[in-house]
Structures are given as structure tokens and as C-alpha cells.
């Protein structure tokens, strides 16, 4: 088999083989300066993992562990305060109303493994709490994860509140979670700007939003 390096990296992540994944990352970093390894190695492997989860080929547990390992390894070479991470619009992630936070954790890991830094607002937040924090902290990209349908519908309230508290300049609102997967029109119904079907899609959507805001 002549795997591409990112395919080897993907295999190592899914096998929870930290040693092999770290070795592949090190080799790639020696080949080129800067953070090009994120584009050439990490992003394609996480995209493929996301796509394989969506088709049922791999499980949520595998996605979770792969994301955690990737996040740990990238943290070793790109620490949280690295200028390469902080030179981005302010972004945050939260679970609206629900108390189930695994989806948020998976997206957070994928974004951090892809070189983004974001604030974790936690879970169980109301739309009012969340709009207030967005305003106070100047968030420009907001990711919302939900598990339950009522919480997904509450995104519509959040959208309205953000329009008010952010003086007509609300952050880009990216949503994800089970209700949105089971009803492809739901994210539009609640006024979100975009919906990520998996963590890798969330990364792509954040990348687009960052480019737009430059």
C-alpha cells in the first residue's frame, strides 16, 4: 500500500497510536517550515475521519479519540498562546441549554488540532447568557452544539438576541449536532449562517469565516 502521509496519520489516530502519529507529524514538520503540516497532514486526515463517521464507517468514540490525540500532538508544537493561533478573529463554542457536551468537545479538539484557538463557554447556557458573553468578549465566530430538538430551536432566539446586543453586527453563527443532521433544513429555519455535519466540516466553515473576516 502506498498511502499518502495524511492517510498514515489518519490510520494512526484511529488506532490510537500516539507514537506513530507523533512520528509522522515530526517528519512532516521537518519537510517544511511554518504550519503547512496542518494543511497537508492534519486537515485531510480529520476531514476523512469526519466523512467516514457520517457514512457509518467509523464510530463517534473513534472520532473523539482521534480528535483528542491530534489536539494533544498539535499542542506540543503549536501551544495555546502561539501567535499563529491567536492571530484570528475571536471565536467561541458552547452547548446551548443541553447538558450533553461530547459534540462540543469533539469540535473543539478538531479546531484546536487545526491550529485555531477558541474559548469554551461550556454547556447548559441560555440564549440570554450566551448573547451577553458574546457581546462582552467580542466574539466574531460562534459555534453552537446541541443534542436535543428544543435546544436547536432555541438558536432562533439566540440569533435575534445577537442581532440586538451586537448592534447589528452579530458574529457568524455556525451550528451542529444531532437535530441538524436529522433535518437538513433546520439550521436555516433557526437562522444560523451555516451547519457543520461533522467536526471536520465545522473546521472548514470556520476557515471560510476567518477568511471572510480578514
Amino acid at each position, binding site marked *: 500500500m502506498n498511502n499518502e502521509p495524511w492517510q498514515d496519520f489518519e490510520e494512526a489516530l484511529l488506532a490510537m497510536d500516539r507514537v506513530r502519529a507523533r512520528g509522522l507529524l515530526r517528519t512532516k514538520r521537518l519537510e517544511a517550515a511554518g504550519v503547512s503540516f496542518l494543511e497537508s497532514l492534519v486537515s485531510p486526515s480529520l476531514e476523512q475521519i469526519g466523512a467516514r463517521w457520517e457514512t457509518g464507517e467509523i464510530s*463517534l*468514540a473513534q472520532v473523539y*479519540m482521534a480528535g483528542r490525540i491530534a489536539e494533544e500532538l498539535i499542542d506540543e508544537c503549536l501551544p495555546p498562546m502561539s501567535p499563529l493561533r491567536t492571530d484570528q478573529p475571536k471565536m467561541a463554542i458552547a452547548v446551548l441549554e443541553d447538558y450533553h457536551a*461530547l459534540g462540543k468537545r469533539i469540535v473543539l479538539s478538531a479546531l484546536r488540532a487545526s491550529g485555531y484557538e477558541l474559548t469554551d463557554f461550556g454547556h447548559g447556557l441560555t440564549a440570554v447568557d450566551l448573547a451577553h458573553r458574546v457581546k462582552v468578549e467580542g466574539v466574531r465566530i460562534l459555534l453552537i452544539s446541541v443534542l436535543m*430538538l*428544543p435546544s436547536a430551536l432555541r438558536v432562533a432566539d439566540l440569533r435575534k438576541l445577537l442581532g440586538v446586543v451586537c448592534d447589528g453586527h452579530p458574529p457568524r453563527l455556525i451550528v451542529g449536532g444531532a437535530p441538524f443532521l436529522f*433535518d437538513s433544513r433546520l439550521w436555516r429555519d433557526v437562522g444560523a449562517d451555516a451547519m457543520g455535519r461533522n467536526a471536520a466540516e465545522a473546521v472548514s466553515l470556520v476557515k471560510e469565516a476567518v477568511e471572510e473576516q480578514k
Partner: protein
Amino acid sequence: MNDTMTPLQRVLTALGHQEADRVPFFLFLSLHGARELGMPLRQYFSRGENVAEAQLRMQSRYGHDCLNGFFYAPAEIEAWGGEVVWFEDGPPNSATPFLSDLKAIPGLKPPRVEEVPVLVEALKAISLMKERSPLLPIIGVAISPFSLPVMQMGFEAYLQLILEQPEAFWQLMRVNEEWCVSWANAQLSAGATAIAYFDPVSSSTVIQPDLYRKTGFVVACRTLPRIHGPTATHLASGRALPILDDLAATGTAGVGISVLEDLAELKRAASGKLALLGNLNGIQMRHWTTADAELEVKQAIAKAGKGGGFILADNHGEIPWQVPEETLSAIADAVQRWGRYPLDWIDEPVI
């Protein structure tokens, strides 16, 4: 055409992989009962009499083939001393997990059903339903020992436990198994006809099949034989296809299936081994028109109805609060229209 079987006969026939008078259908309406009685959810679930009354009224209106003994999932967490967060328009959540220290696992003791007020009310609801309508199947629900830790300790911590702490994991399974068996059997003693063994973590959406075979499968094989009545395993809209044969080997009679998988393919794979329960999309139901409901019911019956072994239901095991009563009526009407065996219309050429 009128029904010629009782709901119980119809359901048992379907579970036996035979064709009944029509395709049986379950409307898993737990939250709608509060609306039926015009009271907030928390008040509604505080008394078994409320739930029994609402279940009987809703069954009478829609004509579905079961009564639902299920209150809400975190009721089992109340049994362990955990807290529940209530919402006006959706199922309660379990709050901050009570099991944050793995060192606490060896000291855990299974709760006693009779000491948990909400579960005593649930048993009362089942008894009342059985008394007032003895010919209707009553479905009790028990969260599987393998899936309960998502609420006991949080999903992330639980995945780490499964993957990295096998000794503590199996200790927790032992105590959860005792709890699950006692809660399931209490419901059967109160009058439940069958138990839905709610096991979403076993779904291939959540854990990979090889890991399931070493964990959730083993737990189910130890637990289900100790439950003194028929069981069906529900994966709460997770995927089942890769583990269908394993599920059948646990001794369960049926499986709740997801709209994420093709119903016809599931039917072929499960034929003669497992009855299928599903797979209407409960989230989309919120905006279905009457025509949508009819089409969805018709398509599901066309894919899985022939030969029995199929009970039409939503794919999650709980129809969301946001689904209007008109849609429920449309589903019920469509089953009456398109669900009559021998389902000859399926083979008729489309003009």
C-alpha cells in the same frame, strides 16, 4: 376495514415474523401526555395517575398498538441521587454527572426501586394502565447498564473509562446490571408487557462493532436473560446494521432502527432474526404535512412491512413535543389505509 386482532395479538404476531391483520404501530408519546392534560411537564410526571390517564386517552384517539410506561430518561438518574434539569418544551436532561471520581465506583450500590419516588409513580402508572386496559401491550423502559453511565458520569468521561480503565468499567457494569435487572423486573411485575432496553451507546454510531462485541454485547448477554419478559433493544436513532446478528444473539426480540440506514436493507438483514421497530424521522415530523406523513408511512411499510417482523414507530423512541397532534393523526390514518395485510398494493405497478 376493521381490525380483527387485538393490539397484543397484532404485536405478538409481528414479533413472531408473521403477518397480522395490519402493520402494528407504536406512537412513543411521553411528553405529549402533559399537553393532553394541560399541565407543565414536571407536574405531569409527578403522578402516575396523570401518565396513565393521558396514555389511555392518546391511545384511544390514535389507535396505536401500545401504551407507553416511559417517563423520562433521567428518572433513573434520580434513583442514583443525580439531579434533573427541566424544560418547558422538551425532555428533562440529567444535570452535572454525580459520578466524577472513579474511586467511587467500587463503593456504588444499586438503588432500591421502592425508595425512588418518581419510579414508584412510574410503576403506579403501569399498574393503572394494566388495570384499565388489559389487552393493550404496555412498554416499559430500562436504560441499559452499558448506556446509563453517559448520565452517571458524562459522555466524555465514560468513553475514556471504556477505552482506558477496563477494571473500573467492568465494576460499574456489574452494579448497573443489578440495577437494570431490578428496575426492568419491577416494571414487568407492575404489568408491563415488554421492556425496551435502551442502549444507544451500543449503536455503531457511537462505538465500533469490535468494541461493542467486547463490551455492550457482553453486558446485554448477561443482563437480558435475567429480565423476566420479552425485550427489544433500542438504539435511539443510532445505526444497527453492522451489529444486527450480535443484537439477535443477545436474546432480544427486536431492535429500534435509525432513519440513517436503509429500511429495506435492514429488513433483509434482520429477516427471521429480529423484528424491526422504526424508522420515521421524529425530528422532521415537526414540519410534516398530512401528505408527507402519508408518504413516509407508506414508504416505510413498502420497505419493511411484508412478512411481518415490523412495527412502525419513530426512530428515536420518543416523539418530540414539537410534533403537532394533526401529524400524529395523519400517521395513524396512513397506517389504517396502507398497513392492511397482505399489502397487495406494494406489488401493483405504478401508473
